[in-house]
C-alpha cells in the first residue's frame, strides 16, 4: 500500500511539470513569431545596400585570324618586280575598286610575261662579227639596255610620291595618272614594233600608238576616263618627261645582244585572260 501511494506522489509532479512545459513552449513560440514578424517588417523598411552579383566569367576567342581580301594570285605575274608593284600600290593603299584593279593587273601581267627592255640613252651600239661552230660569220649588235619592269616600278612610285607631295588625295586622280604613266613607259620599249605586230595595231605616230594601246589594255574603262588617261589630265599636272629622264639616269644597265641580219622575233605573249580573284590574306 505504501509503495502504491509513493508512486502516485512522484507521478503527479512529473505530469504537472510536463503540462507546464507544454504550455510554456507554445507561448514562447508565439511570442517569438510576433517578434520575428516585427523584425522582418523593420528590415523591409531599411534601404538595402546593392548586392555584388558574382557571375562566372566568360572567355571570348580573340579575333586573331588574318583579314582576307579579294585579290589576284601572286603566281600570275611571273616577275618579282611586278609583284612588288602590286603589293606596294594596290594592296598597301587598299585600291580594290573596280575597274581600276583589274585593268592595272592586266597591264602588270603584260609587262611581267614579256621581258621588254628600253634602250639606255647613254649607250653606244657596237656591231660584233662572231664566228659560230660552223665558222659562219654572224653579225650581232650589242648595247646597254634597261629593264622595262624596273623603270616602270620607279616611274610609278615617283608619280605617286609627287602627287602625295602636291597633296592630291583624290583616289581617281592618282589612279588615272598612274595608268597614264605606265602607258608612257610602255611606249618607250625597244621592241614596241613587234609588240604592235603581235597585238595587231599599225599606228602611224606615237600619239595614235598611245591611244591604241590604251584601248587594248584598259578595255573596261569608260571612254571619258580613257581620254583623261590619254591626255594625262590631272588637277596638278605631272611632269612626265622630267620624271622619266630622272628614272632612266638612275636605273641599272644590262648588256644585251641581238642578231642584226635575222632578228629573232621576241616571244611576245598576248594579253592573257585575267584570272578570277580569290580571297587572300595579306601578311
Amino acid at each position: 500500500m505504501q509503495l502504491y501511494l509513493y508512486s502516485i506522489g512522484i507521478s503527479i509532479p512529473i505530469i504537472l511539470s510536463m503540462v507546464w512545459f507544454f504550455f510554456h513552449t507554445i507561448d514562447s513560440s508565439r511570442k517569438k513569431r510576433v517578434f520575428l514578424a516585427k523584425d522582418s517588417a523593420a528590415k523591409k523598411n531599411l534601404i538595402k545596400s546593392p548586392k555584388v552579383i558574382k557571375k562566372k566569367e566568360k572567355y571570348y576567342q580573340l579575333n586573331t585570324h588574318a583579314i582576307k581580301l579579294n585579290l589576284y594570285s601572286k603566281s600570275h605575274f611571273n616577275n618579282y618586280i611586278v609583284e612588288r608593284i602590286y603589293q606596294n600600290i594596290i594592296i598597301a593603299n587598299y585600291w580594290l575598286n573596280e575597274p581600276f584593279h583589274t585593268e592595272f593587273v592586266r597591264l602588270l601581267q603584260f609587262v611581267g610575261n614579256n621581258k621588254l627592255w628600253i634602250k639606255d640613252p647613254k649607250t653606244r651600239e657596237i656591231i660584233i662579227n662572231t664566228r659560230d661552230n660552223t665558222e659562219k660569220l654572224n653579225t650581232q649588235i650589242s648595247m646597254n639596255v634597261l629593264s622595262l619592269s624596273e623603270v616602270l616600278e620607279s616611274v610609278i612610285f615617283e608619280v605617286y610620291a609627287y602627287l602625295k607631295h602636291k597633296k592630291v588625295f583624290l583616289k581617281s586622280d592618282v589612279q588615272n595618272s598612274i595608268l597614264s604613266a605606265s602607258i608612257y613607259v610602255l611606249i618607250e620599249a625597244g621592241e614596241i614594233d613587234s609588240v604592235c605586230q603581235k597585238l595587231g595595231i599599225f599606228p602611224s605616230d606615237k600619239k595614235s600608238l598611245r591611244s591604241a594601246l590604251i584601248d587594248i589594255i584598259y578595255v573596261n574603262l569608260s571612254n571619258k576616263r580613257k581620254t583623261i588617261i590619254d591626255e594625262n589630265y590631272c588637277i596638278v599636272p605631272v611632269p612626265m618627261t622630267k620624271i622619266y629622264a630622272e628614272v632612266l639616269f638612275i636605273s641599272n644597265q644590262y648588256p644585251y645582244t641581238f642578231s642584226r641580219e635575222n632578228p629573232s622575233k621576241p616571244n611576245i605573249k598576248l594579253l592573257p585572260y585575267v584570272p578570277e580573284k580569290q580571297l587572300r590574306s595579306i601578311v
Partner: protein
Amino acid sequence: MLDEQITKTIPSNISLIEIPVIRNKKIYFIRAKERVDQENKNYLRSILIMIDNELVTTNFADTVVFLAEIRKFERGNKQNYYTSIEHHNGDLNLKVTLTDGYIYISTVEALAIIEMHKHALQGMSLIRIVEDELIMTAEMIAHYLNENQMLNKKS
C-alpha cells in the same frame, strides 16, 4: 644553245683593254688580258680589231689574216676578205668594208697598224693565245665591254 652554256661560265679574271692605233680613223686593238693572281702573271688570250663602232674580228686567227692583208696590201688580191685596193688621185688606198659603210687606209697608216701590233703583243705571256685562245661569243664580248665601260657613249 652553246652561247647560253658559255655565258654561264664567263671567266671573271679577264678584262678588255682598248689600245688606240689610228685615232683619226678610230681604229683600235682590243686586248683580252687574263690576270692570274696565284702566278702573278698576265696572259694574252685574244686580240680583236675595232673600227669605229664595229668589232671587225673577234678571234686571233681573223686578226692575223686582217693584219696580213694590210701588210701585203700593195699587191692586192681578189680573195682578200676584209680589204680591197682603190686608186684615188694617183694614190693607192686600202678600202676596208664595214657593215655600215667603209673606210680608207693609206700606206703610212698601214705601216703604223703593223708597228702597233708588235707593241701590243709585248709585256705579256703569249703561251695561251695560240693553243688556248678564249673563244668569245657575242654575249661574252658584250659582258666584258660593259664591265670595262666601253659600251658607254664617248663624250
